[in-house]
């Protein structure tokens, strides 16, 4: 049985098309459609229900050491009020999940994870934490909405002056019309924007509030469909596609977020080995859209497969990400097999879109 976020009724009232995703019934789109929602985010602003995301709370005198042990990034110099991205990895370097780490307070971190992985991550942390550190699962307590797009700040400013200035920073206990929120300047669309957390029983109120104050600026509700096209243009990995239990962060091209020099890193040895596959971006030249699992060919030979693909609303072209054998990383011309049709595809620098 799929779970519902607190906003379920709100979505159905807005006539959203609901689909199961990561164990939740989520809106894939509202009546005006994905394209409209996508453009709204690129040009004005969109609002996403992301209450299904998981929130874990890591506390302990050894909290930091454990973060550095289990997550690809180095959190030693993560200041209070700042956020850092990383990949939770096993000893063999494979990704348990990708996540955001919030430095809430001394010895106290908050970790936001993918909905589908919340239980897995929680269990992984619980089994692998050492010394004085404990993880609490707070996912049911929190609701979250993402306010994304160039007008996001303008809209949020109507409700508060407490706006995190820097990208990847946050402010706690921001009062939005009586709702106490954690406001985080992060997003999954490639645009400026905010992810706003509040108590799960307040998220409906927050959603309606934001839609109301943002209406005059063109703020519209957006579903998972637009979220996918937006993050694809920004070439952001989605767990289950670009990352999974057999992929390492280095294969996924997340070298920037993988620090091998730090002490006690669980996957230090594994990730020091040469990689066998690499993530690349492709633009489909022939007419057609490459989808997940479509084989990627080089010189007629299958050398990998597509992890995500779509028609980019912004670029007007079909784009895709996929994995190929590492030794072909510098090649530029590939072919994609879309249900028997061979489409020409060109290696493209990621991200496909940059604001």
């Amino acid at each position, binding site marked *: 049985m799929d779970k519902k976020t607190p906003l379920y009724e709100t979505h159905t009232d807005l006539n959203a098309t609901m689909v199961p995703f990561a164990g939740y019934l989520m809106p894939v789109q509202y009546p005006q459609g994905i394209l409209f929602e996508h453009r709204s985010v690129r040009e004005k602003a969109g609002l996403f229900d992301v209450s299904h995301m998981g929130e874990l709370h890591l506390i302990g005198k050894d909290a930091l050491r454990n973060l550095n042990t289990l997550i690809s990034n180095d959190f030693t110099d993560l200041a209070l009020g700042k956020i850092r991205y990383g990949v939770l990895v096993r000893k063999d370097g494979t990704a348990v999940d990708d996540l955001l780490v919030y430095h809430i307070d001394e010895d106290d971190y908050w970790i936001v994870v993918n909905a589908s992985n919340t239980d897995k991550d929680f269990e992984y942390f619980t089994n692998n934490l050492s010394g004085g550190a404990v993880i609490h699962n707070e996912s049911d307590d929190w609701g979250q909405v993402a306010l994304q797009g160039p007008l996001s700040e303008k809209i949020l400013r109507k409700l508060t002056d407490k706006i995190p200035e820097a990208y990847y920073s946050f402010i706690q*206990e921001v*009062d939005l019309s*009586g709702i*106490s929120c954690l406001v985080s300047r992060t997003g999954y669309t490639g645009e400026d924007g905010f992810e706003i957390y509040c108590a799960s029983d307040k998220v409906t109120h927050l959603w309606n509030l934001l839609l109301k104050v943002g209406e005059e600026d063109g703020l519209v509700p957006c579903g998972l469909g637009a979220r996918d096209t937006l993050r694809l243009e920004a070439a952001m990995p989605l767990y289950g596609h670009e990352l999974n239990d057999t992929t390492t962060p280095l294969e996924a091209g997340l070298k920037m977020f993988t620090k091998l020099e730090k002490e006690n890193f669980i996957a230090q040895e594994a990730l020091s080995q040469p990689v066998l596959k690499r993530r690349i971006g492709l633009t489909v030249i022939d007419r057609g859209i490459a989808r997940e699992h479509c084989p990627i060919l080089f010189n007629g030979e299958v050398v990998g497969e597509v992890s995500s693909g779509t028609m980019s609303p912004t670029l007007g072209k079909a784009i895709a990400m996929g994995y190929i054998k590492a030794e072909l990383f510098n090649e530029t011309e590939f072919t994609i097999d879309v249900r028997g049709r061979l489409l020409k595809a060109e290696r493209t620098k990621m991200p496909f879109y940059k604001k």
Partner: protein
Amino acid sequence: MSKLIFERSVKNRRGITLPEFDCPEVVLDYETTRASSPRLAQVAEVDVVRHYMELSRFAFGVDNGFYPLGSCTMKYNPKLNETTASLEGFNSIHPTQDPSTVKGAMSLLSNLGASLCEITGMDGFTLQPSAGAHGEFTGLLLIHAYHSDRKDLKRTKVIVPDSAHGTNPASANMAGYSIINVPSNPLGGVDVEALKAVLNDEVAALMLTNPNTLGLFDPNIEEIAALVHKAGGLLYYDGANLNAIMGEVRPGDMGFDVVHLNLHKTFSTPHGGGGPGSGPVGVKKHLMPYLPKGTIIDEHFVENTKTIGRVRSYYGNFLVNVRAYTYILSLGSNGLKEASEMAVLNANYMMSQLKDQFTVAYPGPCMHEFVLSLQDLKDKTGISAKDICKGLLDYKVHPPTMYFPLIVHEALMIEPTETESKETMDEFIKILIDLKEKASTDPDYLKNAPYTTPIKRVDDVLAARHPVLKYEM
């Protein structure tokens, strides 16, 4: 009369049983511990219950009968208030809990403050002061902070009318002010000419009760406010009599800068035999920067760099404030106005029935209370206001306030409140008239009243000359 609890004590008798000790003994230095157990009452739970049940029979609350105690607004205390104030979510929270874990309390206090702002026409309230006098002291410190902040340091005086509650001058004294008493005009209002004579740049504030302690609305209030403000002073409103005017007129609109309210009067929280009360203080915008530390507005602790500091620990008498908020929710906009209307109607009715029998300090329509002077009666019969009050006790009604305001001789101040019926008032009127007749026909009877109470009149002088303030264990 009852035995004292100590006289019920039997050696080695026990009340509540506690769990066995489960942790090792701790030996503290001999010097720091008690040589012997305190000699407190050793009684069983049943003893305690019977003792207090007996004491309760010798107490008289508004739940027992009519209580027309002027200036005290002894209205009915709705039982719902007690139910809400006993909710666990209000009782079992520690005052230093993280604000995110006490959102209900923060929200309640913010809403109560906002409601009081609307009822009084002020801009911000602190709920920290725990009684009317505490509110006065707080308000005067706010006034002091305001003048000091403006470097207006000459203002060392506060004007108080001679009809004011005694707490007014006492609170002003505590706040370091010297007091200028101004006489009242025959209506108990401010004598405007006398006020003009004392107003100057040394005056920090004028403290007023309006309606005043004679139960009359001061029609010159606008002129008074203008005069005080023109002289650079501020206006302080003693909210003891707010029950007369809810929904009719607001202190903020009359020109007052600071008000205190008595939630245990106007907002129906019980008096508890003397407390706890709650004396929130409301201010206009220009005084908000000085509000006490621990004030909650819009669900946040206000952070004032110019604060006067805290006037007690934490945030005030929280559970009293819970009761008051319950009352405001129950009555709402219309109910509060109706309460004031009925309070004024009841008082005028009682006055209309008594004015031919007694001397009314000021004839004509009153607000929520009125004052009788029994000087004539005393001159004719030798029976004082006190004798009449003692006579009332035998009829199981609480006497009115006596000997206040000080400007009326042999004063009886009557405030029926809105929660009394015509029948109850008629009965009281009849008793009062009967007692007046008795004063002529049988004065000695009244001089020795009461007769039906557990004790007779008490020797105040003995108590004060040779104070016995505790039981000799």
